[in-house]
């Protein structure tokens, strides 16, 4: 058998095999839903990783502090920690309460993308928070200390995929907040800024 015969047969065989594939429906939906779920999984994994890193850092600093030689006392108000340095108002749920619009978030480039809902974060004076990630209502509780110590928990949330703004991840990873005029900044345990919000109303 010549090479050409074999090549011709191969073409015919592959064409026949391809033609035998029945029509597939719903490819668009499957692809878009799958991609959104994958994006969400990536975010959940990176949030979990951020929380884990923060926890390790806290434990690590705690152990290092315990083993460190005694330091001379530091005069009040001269702390070098960056988040505390920028705190101007005494912090409480009352001072930070309001609706906040995200200005900047670590690792999120599509902050200005169009979303079905306005992706705002609402901090309430009763220690609850809410808002939207752009297509899901969010809710949870938070605590805030006078010097900006911050913890937050997330309540039940829907999981519709869009260009979700990860307020929940920011709040859960944040260990400190700073309020400067109308800008609210969230910091991780290592002092890294996680997100910055502007007061909307």
């Amino acid at each position, binding site marked *: *058998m010549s090479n050409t015969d074999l090549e011709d047969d191969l073409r015919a*065989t592959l064409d026949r095999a391809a033609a035998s594939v029945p029509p597939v429906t719903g490819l*668009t939906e*499957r692809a878009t839903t799958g*991609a959104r779920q994958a994006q969400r999984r990536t975010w959940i994994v990176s949030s979990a990783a951020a929380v884990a890193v923060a926890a390790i850092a806290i434990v690590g600093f705690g152990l290092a502090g315990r083993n460190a030689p005694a330091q001379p006392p530091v005069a009040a108000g001269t702390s070098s920690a960056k988040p505390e340095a920028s705190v101007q108002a005494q912090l409480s749920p009352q001072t930070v309460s309001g609706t906040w619009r995200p200005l900047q978030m670590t690792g999120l480039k599509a902050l200005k993308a169009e979303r079905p809902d306005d992706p705002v974060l609402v901090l309430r004076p009763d220690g609850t928070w809410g808002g939207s990630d752009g297509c899901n209502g969010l809710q949870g509780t938070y605590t805030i200390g006078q010097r900006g110590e911050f913890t937050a928990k997330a309540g039940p949330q829907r999981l519709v995929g869009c260009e979700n703004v990860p307020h929940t991840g920011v709040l859960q990873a944040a260990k400190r907040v700073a309020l400067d005029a109308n800008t609210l900044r969230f910091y991780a345990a290592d002092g890294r800024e996680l997100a910055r919000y502007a007061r909307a109303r």
Partner: protein
Amino acid sequence: MEFEEYVSARGQELVRLGFTVSGDYQRAEDLAQIALMQAFRSWRKVRNADDPHHYVRRILINAYLSMTRRRSFTEAPTAEIDPQRTVPDPATDIVNSDDLWRSLAGLSARERVVLVLRYYQDLDDRTIADLLGIKPSSVRATASRALATLRRTRQSHRVDERLS
């Protein structure tokens, strides 16, 4: 071109390509879905490419080759299969009747991909090389090796038929 337009125009073509390289209808759908998912995630970039279909096709082929490199590629059957619930594959009857199709299954994944791209997609060796990230000379060598294997397999089948 919007993503939905692309899928309605080329989606079925991708499933067919997936079937010709993998020989498995279910896997073909999975491959098309993987390729489209990845394309959707960076659709702006894909749309602005010189040939968006070439881009998506590359994703599909790479997904297939990665799949075949995994140890779990040869799937073990599950413990309990309900024969009443198996879905008949309309492609099976047609392709089972073709010894050349069966011989293709004996090739390595890369050899099969090269032949599919060359003889089903009608791509030239340079384009295939670009798609696989190898040199055109490697494409020629792979194709030549694969054709030689197919020719040998075919001849031995014919000898078997004459003897039986």
